[in-house]
């Protein structure tokens, strides 16, 4: 297993590929079925956001080994329009109201760490991590 793998998100099929990649790596690292599904759902959401709002971008998946702990890190990046009001999209009930799915608060809940950098017009990078318990 390489230390970092990535999927280019251009079509909806790539979302599935990113999910598959994430699930495989999560499994190899020893995550249980529920956590595998959570990691996959988070990746799915991030990839779908790229597909829907930025048109294209990339999902990178890395294995983490820090302080004797094992984890998985997902980075979603795009050069899309960026997020104008970050606090708004991080608000509960904002994205789910239209059946838009988990949204970024959902991604944050599914994972252990969450970080977001976005500049309007330049793009968005989201990094999330999950640690093996």
């Amino acid at each position, binding site marked *: 297993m390489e230390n970092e793998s990535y999927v280019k998100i251009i079509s909806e099929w790539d979302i599935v590929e990113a999910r598959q990649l994430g699930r495989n790596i999560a499994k190899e690292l020893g995550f249980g079925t*529920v956590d595998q599904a959570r990691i996959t*759902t988070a990746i799915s959401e991030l990839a779908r956001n790229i597909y829907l709002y930025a048109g294209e971008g990339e999902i990178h998946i890395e294995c983490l080994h820090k302080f004797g702990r094992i984890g998985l890190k997902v980075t979603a990046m795009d050069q899309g329009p960026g997020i104008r009001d970050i606090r708004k999209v991080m608000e509960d009930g904002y994205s789910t109201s239209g059946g838009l799915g988990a949204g970024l608060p959902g991604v944050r809940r599914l994972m252990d760490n969450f970080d977001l950098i976005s500049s309007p017009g330049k793009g968005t990078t989201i990094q999330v991590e999950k640690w093996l318990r």
Partner: protein
Amino acid sequence: MDFKAILEASYREMLRRYIEESSEVALYQGQMFSRKSIEHKVSPEEIIHIHCKVLKDLFPDIQKEVLSSFDFLMEFMMDYGLAYQEHQSLRNRQFEIISEIETAASIQENLLETPVPDHDELDIGAISVPAKKMNGDFHQFVHERERISIAIADIIGKGIPAALCMSMIKYAMDSLSESTKIPKDVLEYLNKVVEGNVGSSMFITMFYGIYDSVKHLFTYAAAGHEQGFYYHSLTDTFEDLITEGIVLGVDQDVTYKQYEKRVEPGDMLVLLSDGVTESKTDEGFIERSAITDLIQTYMHLSSQEMVENIYHDIERMQNFELRDDFTLIILRRKQ
């Protein structure tokens, strides 16, 4: 042992028992236990996972395909799980907001407290009840020597925005210099304040009157406010307190008309907000005559008892749901 381990062990035991006995007891226990797992924030996809695991233990020869079907079910439940976690967080926030509104409402109540003037020749009663937590109606008594001024106002709109706007009006009223205290001047001044400060989205109706308790002369003016009533003791009849004047906040340069009324012994001034007359019952809006009927009914009581009884009757007519803030003031010249 942490809750998830307890959950798994209990689930196994309850499910085993249910499959053996098909008993209602096991189902009841399951339901009771599911509340505990809700309390411990276990999400539904985890329940599916545990169910699958327990099945595998209980039936070692279960079809592989049946087990794998649970992966699909779990995936399907994932978004339900997230919706459910969002629920927890929304509920906590909601409780926060409600307690905040309650604090604001009690600050407002403090701010607007206005004792009813006590006067040998006058009997005054007042009640003001918000439809929601915060009051968008305003009333104020000021008693200075022989003059008692009475203001009653209604912000168009209810709730928090109205309350915010009203605390400004209150402040503006307090900073009125004594010389300006002539009804039409007061309204013209407040009109400028509202126009300048509140923005185009807010309008306020207001009635302002001054009772001279030596001459028993009531001088008043109004800005688009619900008309009050005047009760003539001599003829036992009610008359509308007709006034002209546009609501506050529409136009900087409005002037208001001023009116006068000589008040005889036993006569009454009835001032109100549209929440009183526009009360909606199952049979439709109540008529203004319903209010005067109620006043007739309770006329033998003190003014304060009158306004309270009328409020309670109207509250009940509306099934205990106020649709608008309710303010009613009665001033009677004693016999």
